[in-house]
């Protein structure tokens, strides 16, 4: 609205421009109506797009499927026994057929030339190459720090997980050191290492971890990683 001051009969009169004011009011009303219209159009479009979009609940249960796969591997009868001729170290225990868990338990050493280790290596590669082709990686770690880690498979999926495990080991050593039981030269070292293997980050998707007792009472942790948890169905056709 335009306001003008006009001098008339020796006095100042304030005159408002009515026409301009009405025009502005109409423009304002139409602007508001236009905005409301745009708002309604957006609501309509929003409802339409949301109606046709379907959300799915994430159904990956962390590492459950990989754990199942790893357990199945460990319980499975070992492959290629005739060729590698492994030695049964506990003939009076368990069933006649050697399982992969048996082979893991009997190879808690650095000797990679013994028949049991050769059988283990052959069995691991047979089982997981059949299932995953080259998308898998498996490590065996030992609570006995004198035994080197054993690595199988392809890729580097476990590297990032190993970083987490190492952090856990360092934290446990620090805590044990404060408690006066984690002296590296002391007898508690094995216990601290065992604890660190148990506390592996088992919830990470695609990662599986199982503990197997060695014959000398220490622990071996079998760690497994794959991007997929299932066999390709086409393999069965």
């Amino acid at each position, binding site marked *: 609205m335009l306001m003008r001051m006009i001098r008339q009969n020796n006095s100042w009169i304030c005159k408002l421009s009515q*026409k301009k004011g009405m025009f*502005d009011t109409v423009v304002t009303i139409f602007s508001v109506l236009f*905005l409301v219209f745009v708002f309604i159009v957006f609501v309509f479009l929003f409802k339409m797009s949301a109606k046709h*979009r*379907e959300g799915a609940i994430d159904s990956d249960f962390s590492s*459950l499927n990989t754990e*199942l796969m790893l357990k*199945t591997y460990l319980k499975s009868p070992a492959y290629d026994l005739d060729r590698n001729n492994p030695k049964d170290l506990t003939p009076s225990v368990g069933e006649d057929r050697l399982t992969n868990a048996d082979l893991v338990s009997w190879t808690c050493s650095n000797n990679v030339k013994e028949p049991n280790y050769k059988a283990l290596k052959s069995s691991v590669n047979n089982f997981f190459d059949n299932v995953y082709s080259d998308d898998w990686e498996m490590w065996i770690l030992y609570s006995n720090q004198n035994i080197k880690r054993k690595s199988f498979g392809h890729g580097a999926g476990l590297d990032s997980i190993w970083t987490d495990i190492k952090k856990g080991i360092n934290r446990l050593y620090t805590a044990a050191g404060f408690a006066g039981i984690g002296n590296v030269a002391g007898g508690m070292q094995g216990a601290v290492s065992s604890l660190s293997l148990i506390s592996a980050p088992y919830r990470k998707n695609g990662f599986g971890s199982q503990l197997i007792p060695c014959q000398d009472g220490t622990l071996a942790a079998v760690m497994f990683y794959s991007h997929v948890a299932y066999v390709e169905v086409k393999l069965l056709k």
Partner: protein
Amino acid sequence: MLNNKRGGVGEILEHFPKILLTIAVMAGIFLLVGYYTSLTINIKPVEVEVLFNRIMYSPNSIMYMDNVTGRVHPGIINLDNFTDETLDRAINYSYERHLAAKLDLYGSDRRKLVSTTYLNKVLYERLEPLAVSGQKGAGSADIKTRANPVIYRKDGVNYPGFLKISIIIPN
């Protein structure tokens, strides 16, 4: 008078960028909200996952259970329990139109079919042709298939094998 008109048009032109900005902001808000919002949720993947885990972990289902300790061995199928009756008894609903499944157990060579069993067989056989052909609609169903290496236990001996599970989810 001419000046007045010019002033009015000028004021409209002055407001024009503000109106455009308002519309752009509104559009942005709606697009963002719309992008992260859905009015329908598909729970079929969860249904499949839950059924799969019930089959693999239930003590009264097809998996081998140590009778002395009561411990279930997930991944070890007791071939004596690999029957329609066992599955129907383990996973039972008060209505017929629930999940149905077909379990094919293969040998380690992946070709020899050792055994086949069904959960809710009547519905499976009724809906399988519709699901496989990809028919849509309330009367049809979706089919999800997955396979896992397993061990099957026959006469007290463990054998390696593969279990293929085809699950039908009615629409």
